[in-house]
């Protein structure tokens, strides 16, 4: 029967094969022009595998230098993933100039708040400091994706299938990483062998999801169309809000009168 370490090795090999297949698909379909950050991320994941393979062969799996290199490459990869999420945000909202200007500020602020909160809420185990940092980054990425799609839903902007599936893949990967790191922090010793295994499994699953996303027929690219004059917004929207506010105030006063009468 296979041990966890052997399964890890097989999964690692499988994930590298999946990454290479995805990378080839990106090159063949010329998707790297549409998704340069995503292409760089997958390329980074392949490079990480190569670097780690060489590192483990040269210094052994349990050496301090291997541990350092592994974490440096891992955090770099998470940062690259954050760039991919920025790319997804821009694909979804970029062509709506006014809304995009508002959205990126909201997304950046909320990601910053979540990041700081997650760092603050983490335990103070120095051994797990990098795990906690990674979890905070993952949580910020996940919340950015969710806020982006909620924002799009509010403005009734329907994402095309590729963007939706890519977003889903990144969200699942980040959510899984948060859960995995949280369980690791709680059940350190018992959970360590499973941590890598589950991490690899989740990554393989997400590579399949991304591959699926890019196989979907691509929606015709819509460039930024002619926009309305800023006067239209300035004349119309404050007026709507004013009337909505007065409607709400009226309802509120009715509510108070009703409450007082009873």
């Amino acid at each position, binding site marked *: 029967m296979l041990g966890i370490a052997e399964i890890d090795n097989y999964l690692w090999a499988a994930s590298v094969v999946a990454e290479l297949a995805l990378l080839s698909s990106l090159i063949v379909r010329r998707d790297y022009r549409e998704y340069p950050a995503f292409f760089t991320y997958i390329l980074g994941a392949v490079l990480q595998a190569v670097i780690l393979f060489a590192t483990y062969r040269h210094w052994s799996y349990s050496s301090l230098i291997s541990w350092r290199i592994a974490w440096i490459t891992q955090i770099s990869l998470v940062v690259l993933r954050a760039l991919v999420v920025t790319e997804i945000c821009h694909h979804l909202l970029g062509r709506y100039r006014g809304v995009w200007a*508002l959205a990126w500020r909201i997304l950046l602020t909320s990601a910053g708040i979540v990041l700081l909160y997650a760092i603050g809420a983490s335990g103070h185990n120095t051994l797990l400091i990098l795990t906690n940092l990674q979890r905070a980054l993952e949580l910020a990425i996940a919340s950015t994706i969710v806020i982006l799609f909620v924002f799009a839903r509010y403005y009734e902007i329907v994402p095309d299938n590729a963007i939706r599936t890519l977003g889903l893949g990144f969200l699942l990967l980040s959510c899984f990483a948060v859960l995995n790191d949280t369980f690791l922090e709680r059940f350190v010793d018992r959970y360590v062998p499973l941590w890598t295994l589950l991490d690899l499994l989740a990554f393989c699953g997400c590579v399949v999801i991304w591959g699926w996303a890019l196989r979907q027929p691509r929606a015709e690219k819509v460039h930024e169309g002619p926009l309305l004059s800023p006067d239209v917004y300035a004349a119309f929207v404050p007026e709507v809000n004013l009337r909505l506010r007065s409607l709400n105030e009226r309802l509120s006063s009715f509510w108070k009168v009703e409450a007082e009468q009873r």
Partner: protein
Amino acid sequence: MNVIYFLLFIGLVLLLLLAFAWSLRKPEKNKGRMDILNAGDDCERRHVTYMPQVQQALAGSDAEFLAKRGGRALARRVERERRLVALAYLTALREDFYNIQRLAKAIAILSPEVIALQEFERVRLSLEFSWRCQMIHARLLLGLAATRQLSGLSDRLSGLTVQIEAAMRELGERAALAARLASSLDRRGGDIA
């Protein structure tokens, strides 16, 4: 790790997944989209135009008159039926409200710059409106709501509709351009629901 933080992180992840699933739901009604595009010339068919009839049906004096002349059983039956009418009317008013709101969103999408305060204000107002409508809806269902609340809501919405129509006329070509652009974006790959 503290149990509370452990549960907090798990809860956060669940919350994010739920919010994402919610965001991917299809818009409830495509009918609303058509209302946006026809906002300028569709005003004759708005629900608020039926306000006087509904107000008449909900009038307290009517109920008293019925109770005196037709007996309690008839009055109760009529009241029940009128309450159903009021509920349907409330739903229709809400539809009107959201159509107007959608128009504001469509304009925001097509504007080169939007004012954050105005956008946040509209989110807050629509949450408030939803909450109050839900409350009135619940009270109507329980037979507790005074019909005055509903007619007050109608008055305001009617006023709002008149203002919006005036603004739309004033904007003329520009608003028509907004509708045409939204429509063309819709046809070219369905970016805006």
